[in-house]
């Protein structure tokens, strides 16, 4: 490709010319990649150029100019969110593909606090990845957005992906993700298993724990179930949590321990006075206990009724009887999903068994070749 890359004007012309169809778009993409340096050098002059381009038609080019940094320069990240989303959708071959724009888009969402918009792309299942770094950032930022939206379940999944992703050397992204994974796991599940799964890369297995010592201490004091232990641990590591920008989450961990302890009481008691609740979970007053219980009832963490007259809380069983239409639909949809997934799994298994490189390697290692021996799906998942 031997185009004139010397002026911004020609660049604009190229963008305008090449925004017609898919084939041209990919040509433009290559071209734009080559003109990266130019864009950096000319950054001050880019703002007026933006006016010449129509975002809906020339979205790819628009966005390359409208580099994340420029939006940031204008201190107005929200301006980038919508166009970047359009571009992202156009760039994607399928909803399973991760593009370079994904992490950039999520950063903008984070900065402009458009968490909901960010969530919309996090709902897609990503399988196709070109750059591992993109995936790491995508999952990390995605995790942050989910935490912001209190979708801890999804956040755990995303952060878990970063921590357990194959890597030859440990990355700062993985370390930060691991720290957040610990905190979210405590908030959401009330526990954290310090042993990493078998499939985790050895680099992560070796190093992650060294980098997150204060967090592991937090886990230990959390599992004792004693508020005083936990608070002492938070006190002694406060600076570290603060420099990691995790203090807010740590505070959520502390309040989740109260919840966890109250939840434990529901396993043991049918009725209990607010005073007793306050005593057994070390809250200062029955009033405070009432607030906690009320909040937990609202959030659906426990099922209970408070009798304010005699200060009694009556814990109830989960009213879900699994016989409503919604529940059946829910079950049906998860069956569908799982069928879809296992189909995908089988497909992938078949492609892999046909892959010449794999067969060559497998054949060399084992003299006698038996198809069943190379079942890559763990037996646990054989349906």
């Amino acid at each position: 490709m031997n185009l004139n890359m010397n002026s911004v004007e020609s660049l604009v012309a190229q963008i305008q010319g090449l925004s017609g169809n898919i084939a041209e778009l990919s040509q433009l993409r290559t071209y734009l990649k080559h003109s990266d340096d130019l864009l950096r050098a000319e950054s001050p002059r880019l703002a007026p150029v933006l006016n010449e381009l129509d975002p809906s038609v020339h979205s790819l080019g628009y966005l390359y100019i409208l580099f994340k940094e420029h939006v940031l320069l204008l201190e107005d990240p929200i301006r980038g969110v919508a166009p970047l989303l359009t571009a992202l959708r156009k760039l994607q071959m399928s909803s399973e593909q991760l593009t370079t724009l994904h992490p950039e888009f999520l950063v903008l969402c984070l900065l402009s606090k458009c968490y909901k918009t960010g969530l919309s792309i996090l709902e897609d299942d990503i399988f196709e990845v070109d750059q591992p770094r993109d995936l790491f950032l995508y999952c990390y930022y995605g995790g942050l957005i989910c935490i912001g939206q209190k979708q801890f379940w999804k956040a755990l999944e995303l952060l878990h992906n970063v921590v357990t992703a194959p890597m030859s050397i440990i990355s700062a992204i993985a370390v930060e993700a691991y720290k957040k994974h610990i905190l979210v796991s405590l908030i959401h599940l009330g526990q954290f298993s310090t042993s990493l799964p078998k499939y985790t890369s050895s680099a992560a297995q070796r190093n992650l724990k060294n980098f997150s010592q204060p967090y592991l201490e937090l886990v230990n004091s959390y599992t004792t179930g004693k508020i005083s232990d936990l608070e002492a641990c938070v006190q002694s590591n406060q600076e570290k949590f603060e420099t990691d920008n995790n203090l807010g989450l740590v505070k959520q961990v502390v309040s989740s321990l109260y919840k966890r302890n109250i939840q434990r009481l529901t396993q043991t008691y049918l009725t209990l006075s607010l005073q007793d609740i306050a005593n057994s979970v070390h809250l200062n007053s029955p009033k405070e206990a009432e607030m906690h219980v009320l909040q937990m009832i609202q959030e659906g963490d426990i099922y209970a009724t408070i009798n304010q007259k005699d200060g009694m809380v009556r814990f109830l069983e989960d009213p879900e009887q699994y016989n409503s239409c919604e529940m059946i639909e829910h079950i049906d949809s998860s069956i569908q999903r799982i069928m879809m997934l296992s189909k995908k799994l089988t497909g992938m298994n078949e492609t892999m068994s046909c892959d010449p490189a794999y067969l060559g390697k497998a054949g060399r290692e084992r003299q006698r070749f038996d198809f069943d021996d190379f079942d890559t799906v763990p037996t646990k998942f054989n349906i």
Partner: protein
Amino acid sequence: MEAEHEGSRTMIEEDEILVNGGNDSESRRHRPIISGEQLDVEAYAALYTGRTKISRLLFISEKCGVATMQLEALRMAYDEIKKGENTQLFREVVAKIDGRLGPNYGVDIAWADAVDRRAEMRKEKLENELNAYRTNLIKESIRMGYNDFGDFYYAHGHLGDAFKNYVRARDYCTTSRHVVHMCLNAILVSIEMGHFSHVASYISKAEQSQDALDPVTIAKLRCAAGLAHLDSRKYKLAARKFLETGPELGNNYNEVISPQDIATYGGLCALASFDRSELKSKVIDNINFRDFLELVPEIREAINNFYTSHYASCLEYLGNLKANLLLDIHLHDHVETLYEQIRNKALIQYTHPFVSVDLHMMANAFNTSVTGLEKELAALITNDQIQARIDSHNKILYARHADQRNGTFQRVLQTGCEFDREVRAMLLRANLLKHDFNLKTARRH
């Protein structure tokens, strides 16, 4: 016989239902009063012979904390040591007495020196003899020589050397009877030293030579095995071994254990670890063990009361025994744990047959306060040992029956979610790996 047995069982069960139903005047009528009297050291010491008597007395003097009892124990230990040849222990005891027992219990230097001199001579003699045997290569004599050496060291309190010499005799054992003899010696010394792993291994060695085992030896081995399991806190196994001990034991193993101890150790371990049916079949219906239990009526009553659900009187018997059990050289470490387990089991068993239990009545049955009981129950529920929930307002315990249908739905949905998540994560990782692989091949080209 069978029918009669069945009859007695149903009768007991009826009885139990009555009591559980809250008729606790019944249990009061049953309860004879036993006082937590102080241990009669003299009677206690008379049960034992040899070294264990001394070590038990010294143990009591150390733990009892009552001056008169301490001096009494030390005095008897002094007398006992004087019969033997262990001068080192003698000096230790004299230091402990510290002149408090008058001039008769001071340092008898003349005696100690005489014993030491004799010991020196005997040792020389034994050494010469052994060397002679060894040069002549007479297997039986060498074995005897080592054995004598073991006895010699044992008598003088050098347990480590005694153990080594007893064990050395092993290579020269020609009959299985000799092997068993050697093992018994090794077990004895190991028990004295508190090395219960040795005890266990020599028991299994002894048990290999079946033909040489007479009933008394078998009983001895069972006791030793029981002690070894007790030491490693395997109470259920310990209970089994003590319960298997035959009545032939009698007073034949007084250098280690008295038949009374068998009843106490076995009874407590069984109470702590057996379930109701096992308690009936292995303890109460065990004719052999019944003889032992007759020696310690308190334990017998405790077991019977536990089985017939008179928990308050059972716990009271145990409570009265506690002070003395804490002075037992083998049991003292385990008393607290065993008592806790027995109490928890009693609580669990009490609640088991009911849909709802009034905590006031239960507190009566256990002789405790409602709030204390509530705490104990809460702890048991948290540990999943009782499936129930407490109505703290009305002080009633309700049994909880898990709804299997809902539970299954919940589990299925959860498993589905996990599967979903894990498969997606796996596909993603696989793709990442593929990418990595592609990069490498691309670089190679």
